[in-house]
């Protein structure tokens, strides 16, 4: 009786916390949310006046955020290893991941914000709203799959939601920008800086890596590979990354004009690949896949996970 009572209490406390977070954001930013929260274009905002609260825009925005969270996070929410990680993952590594997600979301919000003049204060607000949508969407989906029940222990409960909230939060931000069709989307800015370019590559790499790093297949593939397979993977990763952005002329690709190809290879593709490798190393370490492992197996699994990371990084340069 006391155990059940304790767990119900824990569930209640968590739910209360989630709702209070959501309520806080809603209450604090209700005024400014009109138009800025997902979907409102500059023209309509100016016409309606800055103070008017537009329920439809707000609801559309929230719906887009939830749609994005579902679209991007469902593969992870339906992965068994991710559920196990909810309680098996080292608490400090989980906390570090959750803390690092905040500047990451702010960066994404800044890069793909709704208008070019968006301020850091608004970016922080948007990022935290996306994070809250991520938390809510994860709690909803995990409950739907009966992974969260009143019998779930408190640590497990918090861990599962927190871990899933990271990809869901990124998804909520991306959903808002990629699913929306705002004419004043800031993503077309052709003068984006070098740092922004590298940052977007890290986001792309992180996104695909979060999908794949928890699965056992990543380390299994690295154990099956010989060093020669690993070398071929490195070469292919770099080739694919370079070709994605410079050769195959996707929309959003980059033009070299009179700049030699090897300039772009050294200045963009190779740093991008190193970022993909670092992100993959971080993901593997976070999920405890490298514990007790020697340097060579660790390097091999980093290279294996770095391959999808490289493709994610290249795709992010085109899409975001």
């Amino acid at each position, binding site marked *: 009786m006391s155990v059940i009572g304790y767990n119900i209490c824990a569930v209640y406390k968590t739910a209360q916390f989630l709702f209070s977070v959501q309520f806080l954001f809603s209450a604090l930013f209700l005024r400014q949310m009109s138009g800025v929260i997902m979907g409102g274009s500059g023209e309509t905002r100016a016409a309606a006046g800055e103070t008017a609260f537009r329920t439809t825009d707000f609801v559309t925005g929230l719906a887009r955020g939830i749609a994005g969270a579902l679209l991007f996070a469902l593969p992870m929410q339906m992965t068994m290893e991710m559920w196990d990680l909810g309680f098996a993952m080292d608490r400090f590594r989980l906390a570090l991941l959750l803390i690092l997600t905040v500047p990451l979301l702010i960066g994404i919000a800044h890069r793909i914000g709704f208008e070019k003049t968006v301020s850091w204060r608004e970016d922080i607000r948007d990022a935290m709203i996306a994070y809250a949508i991520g938390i809510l969407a994860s709690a909803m989906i995990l409950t739907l799959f009966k992974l969260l029940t009143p019998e779930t222990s408190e640590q497990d409960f918090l861990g599962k939601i927190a871990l899933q909230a990271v990809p869901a939060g990124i998804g909520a931000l991306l959903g808002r920008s990629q699913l929306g069709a705002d004419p004043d989307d800031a993503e077309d800015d052709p003068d984006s800086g*070098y740092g922004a370019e590298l940052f977007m590559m890290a986001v792309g790499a992180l996104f695909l890596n979060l999908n794949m790093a928890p699965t056992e297949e990543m380390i299994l593939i690295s154990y099956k590979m*010989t060093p020669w397979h690993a*070398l071929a993977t490195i070469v292919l990763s770099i080739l694919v990354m370079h070709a994605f952005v410079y050769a195959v002329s996707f929309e959003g690709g980059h033009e070299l004009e009179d700049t030699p190809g090897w300039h772009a290879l050294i*200045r963009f593709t190779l740093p991008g*690949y190193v970022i993909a490798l670092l992100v993959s190393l971080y993901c593997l370490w976070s999920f405890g896949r490298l514990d*007790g492992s*020697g340097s060579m197996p660790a390097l091999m699994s980093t290279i294996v996970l770095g391959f999808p990371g490289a493709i994610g990084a290249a795709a992010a340069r085109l899409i975001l």
Partner: protein
Amino acid sequence: MASSRRKIVRRHPHWIEWTTGLLSTALVATMTGMILYHGFTAKDAAPELAVTVTAQRPTAQGFEVSFIVSNTGKKTAAGVPVTGRLLNDGQQPVETREVTIDYVPAQSQVEGALLFSADPGASRLDVRASGYSDP
């Protein structure tokens, strides 16, 4: 629309771009070199498994024996059964317990434990890896 989205790579960028680029090139080259070296030295490699008992402690239903399986070889072993036997004076097994470790990567170690009902301190304890397969 399509043309406005295409970014142009400038011919003469800031020096930071070249510095980052050259550092990255050096890193990728070092990594490739390490793997090449590993490729040449790890020919015909095989796992070298060894089990070390690290601790014994009483539990609610018997005794727990913790161990570390280490693989000093240059090849990963998969599905490694670790067998623990308590032997009496006549070297006859009194109790046998086994646990399977999914992977013991090359030059790495993995922790595990066996649960006995008899006290391992009272008899001779023998713990060894009894096999492996290729991953």
